[in-house]
């Protein structure tokens, strides 16, 4: 297929899916079939794009054929495509879970179209080659998050959404101001052109660039929940049902980190003497505070929410060390974390479906009743904590090795210590939910009777699917590590990226579009 089409497909497929779902309003069966087809098509289109990127390194297209720094650019390199593949796998699993794990009212009133629109937003953020378009795609993604978080309108959901909307509006305002500053400094918003301009050593506005980067540090810091800007996350992620929070927890903060890494490797690289130690400090604190917060919680979902924060620290760690190996570790870790985090949320949803609670105190004895579920949880949790040979281990190994080679001993020590506390935290869930005897309650009817065998197997399907991906990622780590290394190389050496994007506006095309203009102006 033509590469230009491949770049547009991940945006168009969910968009048309949404439109069709809106035509089938309130017919949840048809909507769910439609959404299933779209999920598979999305995964397929992203895999085709991956194949294209494997041979061509960077693929780019100009929408409407306007030459590069002026038109709307779509770019795919290894990093963005890997993000999209992980997102497609995770959202397929969440969709499968939602089929049986989400109440019919929520399914009927717009869950599926919102899910698809959210996926379009994710594709947009990952594929855009323009700073302002990145902001716009982020807004597309966020408005879907707002609607999904408040879908159903229970009291705790409303409270959580209120916080989420307010804090994200603030963050978007800061990003927009930052975009304005960048434009006023360099007169361009195209990421590739900016990357070329900021690497000119004698540009008069170079010292001011770090001022602009502060806007993005704070804006994306809020969106991806970096220390000290994470307080909204546990407050709003625990409220909605699992079919919603698994997707948002698993994907949306990681998209924030994606944009963060993209901008701070491509554009804001001038003052690395200041930014790198700052990022190192932030990443260490994010890891520590997240995991300590998790240790204090006694709610299944809240522990997982705090772990999101702690793992954001690891993703930032590679950026702070800024060597190819460490960045590759970060990328591997993001991919692993999207899958693992989504899976843990889904497991907590399966537990809560039967026992009607997320509280660790009220749960217990799941191991005896559902040994398979216990095994699924254990493997995923160990992978999160980073036990070899599961997938988390490889990411952490690459990060630690990169850190030691670069001489960041404190950061590596903190990250390894945090791994240990993560293991403790996962053991706590294991002990409380699965292992300890079920606490005696006044109401014996809190356990729902087991549903039919087929339905139960259907419910396990998404978790088993994700776990298979996680195990595959751990056991066959070498190709994925190679992909991550290539993605990291693409981030550190911007030459292929900028050449591919800007070369499309080289002489013959400019000439061609000029002619088109002239014929349009003087017919």
């Amino acid at each position, binding site marked *: 297929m033509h590469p230009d089409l491949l770049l547009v497909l991940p945006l168009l497929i969910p968009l048309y899916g949404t439109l069709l779902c809106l035509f089938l309003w309130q017919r949840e069966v048809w909507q769910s079939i439609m959404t299933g087809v779209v999920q598979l098509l999305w995964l397929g289109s992203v895999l085709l794009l991956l194949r294209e990127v494997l041979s061509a390194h960077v693929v780019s297209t100009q929408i409407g054929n306007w030459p590069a720094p002026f038109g709307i650019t779509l770019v795919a390199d290894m990093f963005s495509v890997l993000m999209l593949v992980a997102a497609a796998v995770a959202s397929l699993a969440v969709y499968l879970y939602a089929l049986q794990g989400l109440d019919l009212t929520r399914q009927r009133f717009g869950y599926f179209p919102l899910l698809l629109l959210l996926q379009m937003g994710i594709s947009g953020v990952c594929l855009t080659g323009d700073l*302002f378009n990145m902001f*716009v795609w982020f*807004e597309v993604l*966020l*408005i879907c998050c*707002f*609607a999904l978080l*408040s879908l159903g*309108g229970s*009291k*705790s959901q*409303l*409270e959580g*959404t*209120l916080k989420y*909307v*307010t804090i994200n*509006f*603030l963050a*978007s*305002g*800061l990003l*927009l*101001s930052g*975009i*304005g*500053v960048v*434009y*006023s400094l360099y007169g361009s*918003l195209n990421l590739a052109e900016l990357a070329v301009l900021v690497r000119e050593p004698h540009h008069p506005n170079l010292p001011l660039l770090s001022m602009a980067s502060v806007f993005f540090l704070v804006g994306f810091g809020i969106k991806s929940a970096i220390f000290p800007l994470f307080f909204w996350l546990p407050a709003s992620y625990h409220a909605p049902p699992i079919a919603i929070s698994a997707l948002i927890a698993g994907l949306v903060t990681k998209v924030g980190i994606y944009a963060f890494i993209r901008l701070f490797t491509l554009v804001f690289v001038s003052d690395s003497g200041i930014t790198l130690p700052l990022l190192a400090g932030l990443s260490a604190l994010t890891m520590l505070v997240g995991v300590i917060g998790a240790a204090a919680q006694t709610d299944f979902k809240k522990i997982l929410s705090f772990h999101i924060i702690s793992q954001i620290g690891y993703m930032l760690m590679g950026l702070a060390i800024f060597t190819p190996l460490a960045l590759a570790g970060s990328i591997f870790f993001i991919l692993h974390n999207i899958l693992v985090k989504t899976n843990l949320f889904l497991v907590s949803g399966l537990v809560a479906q039967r026992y009607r609670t997320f509280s660790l105190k009220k749960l217990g004895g799941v191991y005896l009743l559902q040994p398979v579920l216990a095994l699924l949880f254990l493997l995923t949790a160990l992978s999160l904590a980073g036990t070899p040979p599961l997938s988390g281990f490889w990411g952490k190994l690459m990060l630690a090795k990169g850190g030691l080679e670069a001489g960041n001993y404190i950061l590596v020590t903190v990250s390894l210590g945090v791994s240990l506390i993560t293991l403790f935290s996962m053991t706590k869930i294991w002990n409380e939910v699965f292992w300890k005897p079920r606490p005696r309650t006044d109401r014996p009817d809190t356990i729902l009777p087991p549903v039919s065998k087929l339905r139960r197997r259907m419910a396990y399907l998404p978790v088993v699917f994700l776990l298979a991906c996680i195990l595959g990622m751990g056991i066959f780590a070498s190709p994925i590590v190679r992909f991550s290394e290539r993605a990291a190389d693409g981030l550190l050496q911007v030459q292929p990226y900028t050449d591919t994007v800007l070369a499309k506006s080289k002489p013959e095309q400019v000439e061609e579009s000029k002619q088109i203009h002239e014929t349009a102006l003087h017919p």
Partner: protein
Amino acid sequence: METLLPFMIGTLFAVGLYFILHRHLFKVILGLILFGLATNLFLFLVGGITRGSSAIIRQHHEVAAEPFADPVPQALLLTAVVIGFGIQSFAIVLIRRVYQAFKSNNLDDIRKENDTR
């Protein structure tokens, strides 16, 4: 104009932020609107203001006559206004739903009720 606007934008940012931190939900809406306005004006100002001339190319000319206002910040501003409008209207509906559910406009009451449940 260029000396006056920064002070106005700064004031708008400050007032918006103050209202967003307020516990009364109606004032949070006001804060969001003012903050959005402030960012939009900031975007407009930081792109450079040129008065009295737009970037329209006259007939039989190849380029617009200098000095003309840069159209890009205006285009960004227009998009940002639309997006901000969408989010603000969502926030207003959300706060109305919160009021219906909790029978209160005060964040402290909402928090208390959710904690006791």
